[in-house]
C-alpha cells in the first residue's frame, strides 16, 4: 500500500508524486518571481527620475527584456502548472497525474533553461536586449551572441510546457473518479484543460519562430532578413500567433482559481457553471484569430485592420459573461472577506479594467496612437499582475491550509493584500496617463513633464515589491510556525473533493477513487 516519500534530496530529484512536483514548481516560480521582480526594481529605480542616472541604456534594455521573459515564462506559467499539479488530481479524485515520470522531467528541465538564460548576463555582449517580444532583425542580425543560448532556453521551456500540458490533458480525460463527468469538473480543472490545449497548439509555433531565428543566425537562411528575400513582418505574425493565445494561457487558469474562491466565500455555488465553461472555450477559440491586433502599425490593408479589430472586440462578449457570472455568484450570498476573497474581488475589478483598456487598444485607429506607449504597459500589467498574480495569490492563500495543514496569519495576509493593492494601482494607474500623453515604452529616459507620474509609479513599485516579500514571509511562517488548521475543510463554504481529504493532504490521496454523485 501507500508509502511515504523517499528520504533526503532524492525525494525531490526522483519524485513522481504530483504534490512534490507541484511544490517544486511553486517554489521555483516564486524564486523566478523574485528574480524578475529584482529586474523590475532596477527598471523603476532608473525611471524614478528623468535622465540617465543609475544604469547604462544597454543594461537597462537587458533588464526590460529579462524582466518580461522571466516573469512570463519563469514566474506565471510554472506557478499555474504547480497549482495544476497539486490541485487537479485532488479535484478530480485521481491518485496522481497520468504520466508521473514525464511530470518529473517536465519540471526538472526548467531550472536548467533558466540557469542558461541567466548565465547570458556573464557572456560577451551581455544578456538578450531585444525585448521579450524579440522582433527580428533586432533579435537576429543585430543581436548579441548570447541570443543562441536564449533560443535554446526557450526551446527547453517550450518542451517543459508541452509535456506539462499533455500530462494535464491525459490526467483530466482519463483519471477522473467515477461519476465525475466533464460537466461536473471544478472550473479550475476546466480552465486548465482548455489552457493545456492552447499550450499544445501554440508552444510549437514559438519553437518554430526561434528555430527560424537560429537558422537565420547560424545557417544562412533568411526567413526574417529582408536583404535575403525574407520578411521581418513574418516574424511578427508567427510570434503573435503564439503570443495572443499565450496571454490567455496566462489568464485562463487564473479565471479558474477565482471561480473556486468566489463561491467559497459567497457560500453559494458558482453561478452559471455551464456558461462559464462555454465562455472559457470561446475565449480560447477566439484567441487564435486575433493575433494581428498587436500589429496595427506594420501597414496592414484596411480589410485586415477591420477584421482583426472586429474579432478582438468579440472577445469582450465571453469575457463579459464571466465577469457577470462572478458578480451574480456574490449577489445575495453570505459574504465574508478573508484574504483569498480580497484578492479574488480585486482580481475581478482590476482585470475588468485591463479588459476595457485592451478594448481601446483593439480599435485600430486609436491603437496607432497608443501602441508601444506606456498605455500598453499599464494595460498588460492590469491583466498579468492584477490578473494572473492576484489570482495566484488568492489560490495560494486559499489552498495553503490544505497543503500544510496549518493556517496562515490572517492579519498579515490582509495587510499584504492592501499594500499589494495600493502599491499595484500606484504603480500602474498613472502609466495610463503618461502613455496617453505620449510616453513610449522600453525607454530608460523620458520627458520632464512625466517626472511626477513616474516617481509615483516607482514608489508604488517598491511598495508592491515589499508586499510580495510579506507573502513569502507569511508562507514560510505558516509552514514553520502556523497554527494547526482546526478542520480538514478550513473554509466553511468551500466545495470539492480536495476538501474531503485530510489537511495536510497525505502523500498519497484517492488510492481508491471516491464516488462522485
Amino acid at each position: 500500500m501507500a508509502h511515504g516519500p523517499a528520504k533526503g534530496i532524492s525525494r525531490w530529484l526522483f519524485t513522481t508524486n504530483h504534490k512534490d512536483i507541484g511544490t517544486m514548481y511553486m517554489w521555483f516560480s516564486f524564486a523566478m518571481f523574485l528574480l524578475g521582480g529584482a529586474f523590475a526594481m532596477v527598471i523603476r529605480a532608473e525611471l524614478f527620475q528623468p535622465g540617465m542616472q543609475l544604469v547604462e541604456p544597454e543594461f537597462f534594455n537587458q533588464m526590460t527584456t529579462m524582466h518580461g521573459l522571466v516573469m512570463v515564462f519563469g514566474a506565471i506559467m510554472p506557478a499555474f502548472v504547480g497549482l495544476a499539479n497539486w490541485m487537479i488530481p485532488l479535484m478530480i479524485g485521481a491518485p496522481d497525474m497520468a504520466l508521473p515520470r514525464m511530470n518529473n522531467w517536465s519540471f526538472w528541465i526548467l531550472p536548467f533553461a533558466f540557469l542558461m538564460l541567466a548565465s547570458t548576463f556573464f557572456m560577451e555582449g551581455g544578456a538578450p536586449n531585444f525585448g521579450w517580444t524579440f522582433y527580428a532583425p533586432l533579435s537576429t542580425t543585430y543581436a548579441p551572441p548570447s541570443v543562441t543560448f536564449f533560443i535554446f532556453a526557450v526551446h527547453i521551456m517550450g518542451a517543459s510546457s508541452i509535456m506539462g500540458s499533455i500530462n494535464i490533458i491525459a490526467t483530466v480525460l482519463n483519471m477522473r473518479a467515477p461519476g465525475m463527468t466533464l460537466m461536473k469538473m471544478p472550473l479550475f480543472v476546466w480552465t486548465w484543460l482548455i489552457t493545456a490545449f492552447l499550450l499544445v497548439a501554440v508552444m510549437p509555433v514559438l519553437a518554430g519562430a526561434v528555430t527560424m531565428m537560429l537558422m537565420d543566425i547560424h545557417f544562412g537562411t533568411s526567413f526574417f532578413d529582408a536583404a535575403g528575400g525574407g520578411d521581418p513582418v513574418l516574424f511578427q505574425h508567427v510570434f503573435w500567433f503564439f503570443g495572443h493565445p499565450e496571454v490567455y494561457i496566462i489568464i485562463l487558469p487564473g479565471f479558474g482559481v477565482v471561480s473556486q474562491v468566489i463561491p467559497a466565500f459567497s457560500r453559494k455555488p458558482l453561478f452559471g457553471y455551464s456558461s462559464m465553461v462555454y465562455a472559457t472555450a470561446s475565449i480560447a477559440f477566439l484567441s487564435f484569430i486575433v493575433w494581428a491586433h498587436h500589429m496595427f502599425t506594420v501597414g496592414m490593408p484596411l480589410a485586415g485592420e477591420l477584421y482583426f479589430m472586429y474579432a478582438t472586440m468579440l472577445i469582450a462578449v465571453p469575457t463579459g459573461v464571466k465577469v457577470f457570472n462572478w458578480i451574480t455568484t456574490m449577489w445575495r450570498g453570505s459574504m465574508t472577506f478573508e484574504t483569498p476573497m480580497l484578492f479574488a474581488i480585486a482580481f475581478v475589478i482590476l482585470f475588468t479594467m485591463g479588459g476595457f483598456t485592451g478594448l481601446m487598444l483593439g480599435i485600430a485607429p486609436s491603437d496607432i496612437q497608443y501602441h508601444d506607449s506606456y498605455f500598453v504597459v499599464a494595460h498588460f500589467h492590469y491583466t498579468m499582475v492584477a490578473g494572473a498574480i492576484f489570482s495566484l495569490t488568492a489560490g495560494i492563500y486559499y489552498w495553503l491550509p490544505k497543503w500544510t495543514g496549518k493556517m496562515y496569519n490572517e492579519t498579515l495576509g490582509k495587510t499584504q493584500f492592501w499594500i499589494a493593492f495600493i502599491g499595484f494601482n500606484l504603480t500602474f494607474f498613472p502609466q495610463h496617463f503618461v502613455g496617453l500623453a505620449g510616453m513610449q515604452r522600453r525607454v530608460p529616459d523620458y520627458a520632464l513633464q512625466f517626472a511626477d507620474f513616474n516617481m509615483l509609479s516607482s514608489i508604488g513599485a517598491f511598495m508592491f515589491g515589499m508586499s510580495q516579500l510579506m507573502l513569502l514571509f507569511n508562507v514560510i511562517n505558516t509552514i514553520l510556525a502556523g497554527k494547526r488548521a482546526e478542520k480538514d475543510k478550513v473554509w466553511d463554504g468551500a466545495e470539492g473533493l480536495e476538501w474531503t481529504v485530510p489537511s495536510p493532504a497525505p502523500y498519497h490521496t484517492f488510492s481508491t477513487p471516491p464516488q462522485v454523485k
Partner: protein
Amino acid sequence: MKTLENLFDFPFNIFDPAGVQAGWLANLGWVLVVLMSVLIIGMAVLVVWGALRRRGRLEEHMPIDVDGGKGWILWGGVALPVTVLTSLFVVTVVTLNMLPGDREEPALAVKVTAHQWWWEVDYLYDDLPQRFSTANEIHIPVGQPVRIELISSDVIHSFWIPKLHGKIDAIPGHTNALIVEAEEPGVYRGECAEYCGVQHAHMRFVVVAQPPEEYQAWAARQREPAAPVTDPKLVKGREAFEGYACALCHSIRGTKARGQVAPDLTHFASRMTIGGIMPNTRARLQAWIVNAQALKPGVRMPTLEEFDGETLNALAAYLESLE
C-alpha cells in the same frame, strides 16, 4: 544628473492635436476615454456593491435565490457588450473613413529612412534637381497634405509625430506611407516608437510646420550646395572635415565629402538639434565631434579624440557656418 532628454523638448501630447489626422484620432480618443471610464467605474461599483450587500456566514442567513439573476448574464454579459461594441465599431469605421488615406495624391512627398538611431529625410520632388536631403528635421507646409514614405536601413523602427498622426512602422524590405496635414504652424516632437536597440529612447526628430512661403524659402536654401568658404579658419575646418574620417560617412554637397551612411551636413547649421537630442550650439557640437559616444552611448559615430584644440575649433566653426 545628465538629463539629455530634457535639454530639448517640443510638445507631443496626443490629446492636443495640431493636424487633421491627429484631430480625428483625438476625437475618437476622447470618446473612448470617457466611455471606458464610465464603464470601468460602473463595473467597479457593481462588483463592490454586489460583494458588500449581504455579509455574514451561513449560520446567520442562508443565501437566497441561488439560481436567480439569469437576467444579469443576458443584460450585462451579452446585451451590454454587444451594444457597446457595435457602436464603437461604427464610430471607428467612421474615423477610419475620415482619415485621408492614399486616395488623394499630395503634392509633396518625403522619404524618411530610419537608421539606428537617426532619421534620414529626402524630399522627393518630381524634378530631380529639386531634390535634397537632410536629417532629424522635417519641414512641412501648413495646410497641405504631405505624403511620408517610410523605409528602414537596419531594424524595425516606428515613425511617430503624436500631434500630427499615429505611428507607422519602418520595416526593412517594406515601404509604408502616411499622410499628414498640419493645421497649426509650430515645432512638434517626433520619436521612434518601436524598440530598436540601445538608443531607442533618444531616436528623436523635430517637425517644423510652417506657412507655405516660409517652407518654400527653407526648401530653396536646403537645395543649394554648401556655400564656398574663404575665411582661412573655415577653410582649415573644411579641409579637416574632408581629410579626417568625417567625409567617409557624412556628405556636404559642394565639397569632397560624399559619405552616404550618416546625416547629410550640407546645411547642418540650419538645424535645431544635434543627433536629434540636444540644441545645436557650438560647445555641444565640439563635445559631439570628439566624443559622441559619451552623449549618445552606442551611437554609430566613432569617438574621434585625435584633434588638437585648434583643428577642433576650426571644424566646429566650419560646420556652424553651413547655414
